[in-house]
C-alpha cells in the first residue's frame, strides 16, 4: 500500500486522460480518473490521493476552481496540484499557479518531463510529511515538559510556599523563565524573630539548575524555623549542596538575616552580583560578594563569615541575580551595574526605586524573553512591631514528658563554635504543652543566653551598644572578644514539673562572669517598650511568671507556667 502513490487525473478529454493514465501506471502509480472539476473534487474528498493533475478547461467546474477547493480540503497537508494545459500564454500559466497550482505540464505530454516533475513534487510532499510528524513530536514533548514543570512547581511550592514572599515590606520580581531555571527566592521569619531571606542562582538552566533548589530550600527553611544562626544555616546549605552536586555545579547566593530589634542586616554573599542598601538620606551602600558560591568547597575550607550592616527603619536592601545585569536590549547591550546604581542613587523617594528599576528592566528586554533568569527583590527595614507573629514550628510532641530536669553546660570551645539555642529549645518543646508558645520560649532562652555570654562571660558593657559604630561595631568587638576568650562557661539548668493542672518550667542560666550588684535593679514592665539596648532582660521579665537574680548576679532564674492542654 505504502509503495503505491495514488494520483488523481482530471480531464474531460477521454483520449488525453487515458493516455496520461497509462503513462502513470507504467511508472507504478495507482491512478484515479475524473471527468470534470466537480468530479475531481468529489473523488479527492473520497480517496485522498497524494497528487492531483487537473486540466484547466473542463465543463461543470474548471480546473482553477477545483484546485482552490482541493487545496482548501487538504488543509495543512501538502497535496501537489499540477495543471494540464495546452495554453502557452505567460498570463495563463501565471494564473494556473495563482489558483493554487504547484506546477503545470504542457500538452502534448512528454513522459520524461512528467516523471521528473512528479519526482520533485514527491520529494516536497515527503519533506512536508516529515516536518508535520516532527512538529507533532515536538508539541508532544513540549506538553510533557510543561506537565513535568507544573508537577515540579507543585512540589517546590510545598517545600517553599511562595506566600512567604507576600509581605508588606517585600517587593519582588521573578521572570517566568526564572522559576524553573534555577533561581530561588525565599523569605521566612526565624524563631529568633529575625527575617531570613535567600536569593539563589544555580549554575546553568533547566533541569540541572532546578534540581538543587529543593534541598537548598528545605535546609534553609527548616533551620530558620528552628532558630539557627545565619552562619550555621550557610554552613549546612553548603555541605548539603557540596555532598549532592557533582564537581562544576554550584549555587550563587545572598543569604540575609534582617534583625528588626537590633536594626542590623547580616549577609553572606557568594558569587552573586553586588547588593545595595539605600537610605532615605540618599546614601547607597554597596555590598560585594566575598565568598566562593555554595556547593564548591568542602566543609573544611568553607568560610561562613558574614558581613553586618547597621540600618534604620525605612532603609532598603536591594539584590538580584546576574540576569538583571545581563538583560539585553535589541542591540545586545547589557543592562549593567552602572545603570542600577544610577537608579538607586537617583533623586526622589527611595520607595520608587524598585518600580523604576523594574520598569527600566522591562523596557530593556522589550517584549522579548531575557537571555537569563531575572530575579529581583527589595526588602524594607521595618520596626519589629510591624512584623506578623513568628510562625510556630510544630514539634513531634504528642509525648507527655512533664517531670524532668537537665543541666547543659557549654565550655570555652563550645561557646566559641556552637549556638545551643535551637537544641535546648527543641528539648524543652518536646513533650511540653508549649505549642503556641515556642517563639516566646525562644526569646526567653535567647535573651538569657546572650546576656550570660556577652555581659557575663565576655564582660562587655551594654552601654557599648549605643557607642560609636553602634551594633556593627558591637558585633565586631563581640567576635573579637569571643575569639580571645580563654576560659568561661554558660550553664543551663532546666526543670519541668507538673502541679495543679499546670506545667511549671524553671530555667536557670549561670555564667562564669563576675556578676553584678542586682539589688537595686528594678525591671519596670514599661521599660520593655523603650530602646532595644539593655531591654533584653526587661523583655524576659515581662514574658515570664517570675524572674530573679541569684548568686553574684551571674545567675538568673525564670519560671514559665502553662496550663496543661491550654493550647
Amino acid at each position, binding site marked *: 500500500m505504502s*509503495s503505491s502513490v495514488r494520483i488523481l487525473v482530471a480531464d474531460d478529454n477521454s483520449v488525453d486522460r487515458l493516455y496520461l493514465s497509462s503513462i502513470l501506471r507504467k*511508472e507504478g502509480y495507482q491512478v484515479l480518473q475524473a471527468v470534470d472539476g466537480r468530479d475531481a473534487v468529489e473523488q479527492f474528498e473520497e480517496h485522498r490521493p497524494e497528487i492531483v493533475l487537473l486540466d484547466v478547461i473542463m465543463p461543470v467546474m474548471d480546473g482553477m476552481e477545483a484546485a482552490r477547493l482541493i487545496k482548501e480540503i487538504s488543509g495543512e497537508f501538502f497535496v501537489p496540484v499540477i495543471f494540464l494545459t495546452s495554453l502557452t500564454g505567460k498570463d495563463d500559466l501565471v494564473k494556473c499557479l495563482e489558483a493554487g497550482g504547484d506546477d503545470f505540464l504542457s500538452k502534448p505530454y512528454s513522459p520524461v518531463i512528467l516523471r521528473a516533475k512528479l519526482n520533485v513534487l514527491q520529494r516536497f510532499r515527503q519533506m512536508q510529511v516529515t516536518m508535520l510528524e*516532527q512538529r507533532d513530536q515536538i508539541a508532544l514533548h513540549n506538553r510533557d515538559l510543561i506537565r513535568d514543570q507544573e508537577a515540579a512547581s507543585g512540589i517546590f511550592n510545598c517545600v517553599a510556599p511562595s506566600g512567604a514572599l507576600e509581605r508588606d515590606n517585600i517587593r519582588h520580581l521573578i521572570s517566568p523563565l526564572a522559576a524553573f531555571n534555577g533561581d530561588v527566592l525565599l523569605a521566612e521569619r526565624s524563631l529568633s524573630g529575625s527575617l531570613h531571606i535567600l536569593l539563589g542562582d544555580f549554575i*546553568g538552566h533547566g533541569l540541572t539548575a532546578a534540581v538543587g533548589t529543593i534541598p537548598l530550600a528545605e535546609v534553609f527553611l527548616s533551620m530558620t524555623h528552628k532558630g539557627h544562626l545565619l552562619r550555621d544555616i550557610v554552613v549546612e546549605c553548603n555541605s548539603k549542596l557540596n555532598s549532592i552536586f557533582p564537581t562544576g555545579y*554550584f549555587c*550563587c547566593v545572598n543569604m540575609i538575616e534582617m534583625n528588626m530589634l537590633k536594626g542590623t542586616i547580616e549577609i553572606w554573599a557568594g558569587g552573586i552580583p553586588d547588593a545595595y542598601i539605600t537610605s532615605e538620606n540618599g546614601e547607597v551602600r554597596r555590598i560585594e560578594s*566575598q565568598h566562593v558560591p555554595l556547593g564548591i568547597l568542602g566543609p573544611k575550607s568553607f568560610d561562613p563569615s558574614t558581613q553586618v550592616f547597621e540600618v534604620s527603619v525605612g532603609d532598603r536592601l536591594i539584590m538580584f541575580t546576574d540576569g538583571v545585569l545581563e538583560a539585553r536590549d535589541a542591540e545586545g547591550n547589557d543592562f549593567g551595574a552602572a545603570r542600577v546604581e544610577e537608579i538607586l542613587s537617583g533623586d526622589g523617594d527611595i520607595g520608587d526605586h524598585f518600580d523604576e528599576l523594574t520598569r527600566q528592566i522591562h523596557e530593556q528586554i522589550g517584549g522579548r524573553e531575557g537571555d537569563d533568569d531575572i530575579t529581583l527583590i527589595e526588602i524594607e527595614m521595618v520596626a519589629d512591631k510591624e512584623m506578623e507573629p513568628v510562625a510556630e514550628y510544630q514539634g513531634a510532641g504528642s509525648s507527655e514528658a512533664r517531670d524532668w530536669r537537665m543541666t547543659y553546660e557549654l565550655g570555652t570551645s563550645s561557646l566559641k563554635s556552637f549556638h545551643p539555642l535551637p537544641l535546648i529549645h527543641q528539648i524543652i518543646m518536646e513533650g511540653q504543652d508549649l505549642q503556641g508558645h515556642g517563639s516566646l520560649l525562644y526569646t526567653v532562652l535567647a535573651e538569657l543566653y546572650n546576656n550570660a555570654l556577652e555581659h557575663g562571660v565576655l564582660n562587655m558593657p551594654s552601654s557599648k551598644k549605643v557607642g560609636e559604630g553602634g551594633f556593627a561595631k558591637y558585633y565586631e568587638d563581640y567576635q573579637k572578644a569571643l575569639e580571645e576568650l580563654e576560659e568561661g562557661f554558660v550553664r543551663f539548668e532546666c526543670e519541668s514539673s507538673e502541679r495543679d493542672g499546670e506545667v511549671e518550667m524553671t530555667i536557670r542560666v549561670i555564667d562564669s562572669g563576675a556578676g553584678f550588684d542586682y539589688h537595686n535593679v528594678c525591671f519596670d514592665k514599661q521599660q520593655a517598650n523603650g530602646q532595644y539596648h539593655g531591654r533584653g532582660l526587661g523583655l524576659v521579665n515581662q514574658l515570664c511568671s517570675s524572674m530573679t537574680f541569684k548568686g553574684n548576679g551571674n545567675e538568673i532564674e525564670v519560671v514559665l507556667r502553662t496550663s496543661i492542654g491550654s493550647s
Partner: protein
Amino acid sequence: MSCQNGGVRDANSQGATTLKVIFPDNVDVPMAIHSTVSNNCLKIVIEGQFDLHSHKEFLASYSDVDFNPQTYVVDMRGANYLDSSALGMLLLLRDHAGGDDSKVEIVNCNPDVRKILSIASFEQLFQIH
C-alpha cells in the same frame, strides 16, 4: 540557536524520493580552544565566548593529553565573555588537576572576565593574573 542541516536523502524504489530529516545532536558554535604543552605545563588558550557550548572542546583540551602536567595555565586573552557554566568548567579542570592540591593559573583576563571571576571569589581557588 542556529540549527545546522541534519538532512539525509535517500531514494526509494519508485523513482520518487523521500527526505528523512533528523534532529541535529549537537549545535556547533564557532569557538576555538587549543592546548599546548611545554615544561610539564599544559596551556589552554580560549578564544571567543566561553560558555556551555565550549564544554566538549574544553574538556578535550586537557583530557586528551597523554601525560600528567604539573601545572595548568588557562589563557583568556581571546575570551571576550564567560558565563556561569564556564565557571563550572574551570572547577572541573581544577578537580582534574588535583582539587585543593592543583596548580591552575588563569591569565590575561579582560576586565569583564576578571570581574566575573572575582564576583565568584575564584582567586581563592585559582591563581589569577
